């Protein structure tokens, strides 16, 4: 989400301060607790994979300590990109305390992770979160008994309501290095023992116990392996691991370790928790099942899209924009500003710079404030509600088959849907995907065909103003392009498709405060990042216009723009604007407004939707995929955009 588009708001802490890390499964409330414990808000949403990078802030209760919010781990040893980020933090930070955030209604799974964390030799506190949901499902956990067994504090919490947070803060200083939860079988223990001794002697870690590292290493944790290999005696240790790994039994060592931890977790969970019968039919479960139902799932999706369309396209882009742009800016503000500027600056180029055709105020600020701001505000509100409800993950179930056709699986739904908020952030979220192949294809599709919120708003504004049909045609075009290019990409990019296994977080009632906080955070991002770019873009257009380059570009673009795409020649200017940001380009088309026929509007919007991704997201693609891939993507995207635009133009003329 846009949050990562601006720099992290974390309070400054010195890098070698004592570090406390929140660690736990995805979607258990780590980020909510982080907010409670530090006062720093990081994105909170009801789906796994919200946090893909470590966030850091000074703790409220001890300004000298630095608190980390880590990406959720399904299990350790780390496998996926985001799990590795967490492992890296554990290895490289000045770690003094781990706060495991657990899910009280899934105690067995929580303890499965605890079984590994207790081996790290770092003081541990368990925040047993979601106790409200556990209660609603008839689950009770004997917190004292659990604390007794682990020999470390365990505090029941409801992070969203703040329950137990004070107790948690008080418990932190009492944390001790916990008692290990299990002994593995004799053979495995021997292997662990050998590696532990080697690590302790050749490559001791400043904070983490050698035994914990040995277990991770034998479990094939790539981050631990790379840390070890960077130590002086590392190569020898890794060689030893290779040597003993195949010796232990039929089952692979990592599987064996994991199984034993699972067994220990199950046994402990059984003794400290109770399930009262008959309490597991909750409303949340029913709604959730409806959302993934083979038949009812579809009407529900349609209903959701319609509601969003009417709220954003009709109310935001229609009513609000009408009030702001036409009535307030058009009738009152802009004439006043124009008169003011002209009386003070005369009517030369200087006043043109502010209030002319490509004026910083009349174009740049008016676009940003009167056209796009109301649209993105409504969009962010709707998006925040959906995010918090947990609906997005459920979408992956009904979309899985369609994504199968393009060589991906339903997990890719999440980055794609998040792309509708901000493509830049969504590109980062591709880290939750399991293979490099899935990441590459998804990144490409995001860059090509997923419009971000600002752009979506403009599209709604232009097409919604014409007819619902026009917006629907645009939607169908974009979906078709996604399917076709995705299918091609799936064929071209080597590698196998991975079948989907995913957790479906419970449907929850959105928390109003959280939705508002997210929306205002995103709006702030919009104002800080987008407005300067709009102003810069306007300035460039002004200069091009003054230098006489713009008419020349419009002339040069004629064969493509007028001939192939069938648009008025002024639309070329919009495409030039689109280089900076697609939504800026789309706004340029919006400004042509009533000069466009229905077909022209659809063709223009399809083309500009596919057009180059915004500067920020190109930079993220560079960072995540390397410059070769980024350049290749750009080289594919531009011609495809114009090609498809033309095809749509000709096809629509055949039928309409």
């Amino acid at each position: 989400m846009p949050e990562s588009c601006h720099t992290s708001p974390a309070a400054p802490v010195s890098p070698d301060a004592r570090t406390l890390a929140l660690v736990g499964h995805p979607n258990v409330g780590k980020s909510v607790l982080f907010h409670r414990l530090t006062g720093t808000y990081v994105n909170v949403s009801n789906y796994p994979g919200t946090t893909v990078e470590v966030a850091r802030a000074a703790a409220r209760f001890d300004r000298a300590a630095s608190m980390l919010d880590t990406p959720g781990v399904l299990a350790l040893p780390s496998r996926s990109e985001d799990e590795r980020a967490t492992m890296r933090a554990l290895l490289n930070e000045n770690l003094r305390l781990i706060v495991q955030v657990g899910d009280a209604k899934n105690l067995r799974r929580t303890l499965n992770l605890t079984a590994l964390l207790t081996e790290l030799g770092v003081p541990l506190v368990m925040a047993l979160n979601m106790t409200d949901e556990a209660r609603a499902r008839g689950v009770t956990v004997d917190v004292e008994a659990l604390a007794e067994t682990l020999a470390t504090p365990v505090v029941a919490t409801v992070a969203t309501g703040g329950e137990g947070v004070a107790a948690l803060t008080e418990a932190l200083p009492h944390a001790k290095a916990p008692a290990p939860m299990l002994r593995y079988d004799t053979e495995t223990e021997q292997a662990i023992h050998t590696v532990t001794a080697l690590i302790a002697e050749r490559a001791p870690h400043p904070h983490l116990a050698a035994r914990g590292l040995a277990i991770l290493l034998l479990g094939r944790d790539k981050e631990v392996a790379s840390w070890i290999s960077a130590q002086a005696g590392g190569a020898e240790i890794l060689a030893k691991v290779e040597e003993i790994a195949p010796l232990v039994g039929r089952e692979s060592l990592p599987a064996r370790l994991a199984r034993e931890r699972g067994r220990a977790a199950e046994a402990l969970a059984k003794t400290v928790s109770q399930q009262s019968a008959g309490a597991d039919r909750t409303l949340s479960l029913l709604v959730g099942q409806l959302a993934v139902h083979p038949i009812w799932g579809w009407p529900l999706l349609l209903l959701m899209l319609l509601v969003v369309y009417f709220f954003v396209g009709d109310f935001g882009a229609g009513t609000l924009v009408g009030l702001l742009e036409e009535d307030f800016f058009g009738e009152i503000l802009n004439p006043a500003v124009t008169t003011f500027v002209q009386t003070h600056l005369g009517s030369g180029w200087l006043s043109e710079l502010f209030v002319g055709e490509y004026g910083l105020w009349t174009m740049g600020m008016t676009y940003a404030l009167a056209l796009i701001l109301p649209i993105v505000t409504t969009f962010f509100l709707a998006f925040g509600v959906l995010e918090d409800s947990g609906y997005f993950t459920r979408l992956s179930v009904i979309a899985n088959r369609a994504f199968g056709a393009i060589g991906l699986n339903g997990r890719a739904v999440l980055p794609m849907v998040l792309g509708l908020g901000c493509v830049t952030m969504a590109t980062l979220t591709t880290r939750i995907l399991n293979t490099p192949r899935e990441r590459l294809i998804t990144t490409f599709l995001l860059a090509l065909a997923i419009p971000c919120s600002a752009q979506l708003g403009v599209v709604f504004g232009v097409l919604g103003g014409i007819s619902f049909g026009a917006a629907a045609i645009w939607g169908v075009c974009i979906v078709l392009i996604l399917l076709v290019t995705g299918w091609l990409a799936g064929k071209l990019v080597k590698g196998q498709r991975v079948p989907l296994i995913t957790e479906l977080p419970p449907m929850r009632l959105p928390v109003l405060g959280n939705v508002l906080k997210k929306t205002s955070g995103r709006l702030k991002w919009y104002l800080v990042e987008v407005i300067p770019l709009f102003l810069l873009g306007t300035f460039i257009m002004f200069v091009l216009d003054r230098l006489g380059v713009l008419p020349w570009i419009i002339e040069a673009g004629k064969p493509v723009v007028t001939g192939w795409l069938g648009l008025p020649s002024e639309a070329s200017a919009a495409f030039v604007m689109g280089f900076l940001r697609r939504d800026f380009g789309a706004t340029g088309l919006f400004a042509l407004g009533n000069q466009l026929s229905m077909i022209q509007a659809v063709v223009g919007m399809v083309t500009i939707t596919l057009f180059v991704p915004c500067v920020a997201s190109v930079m993220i693609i560079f960072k995540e995929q390397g410059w070769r891939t980024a350049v290749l993507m750009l080289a594919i995207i531009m011609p495809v955009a114009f090609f498809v635009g033309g095809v749509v133009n000709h096809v629509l003329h055949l039928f309409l």
Partner: protein
Amino acid sequence: MTPPPPPHLERIRLTGTPTGRSVRLAEFGEEIDPLQREQLLAYGLSGAQSITVLQQRPMTVVLCEHMELALERDVAQHIWVEAE
């Protein structure tokens, strides 16, 4: 000739389990790739865990403890379960 009675309860594929039924996890087939097997374990599908099948299409959705898990057919058909 009648086949000898099965030594345990009969094993069926997860995909063959009727919706609404609770079953016990028996085994993961060899066809499931080791990484995915680990993932299943991490989600808590281990031991003789009891799971409830919520639906079979478009994906198999099961309730395991209080977590809903969606599994693609390719995986679910290689998970063997037995009646409780």
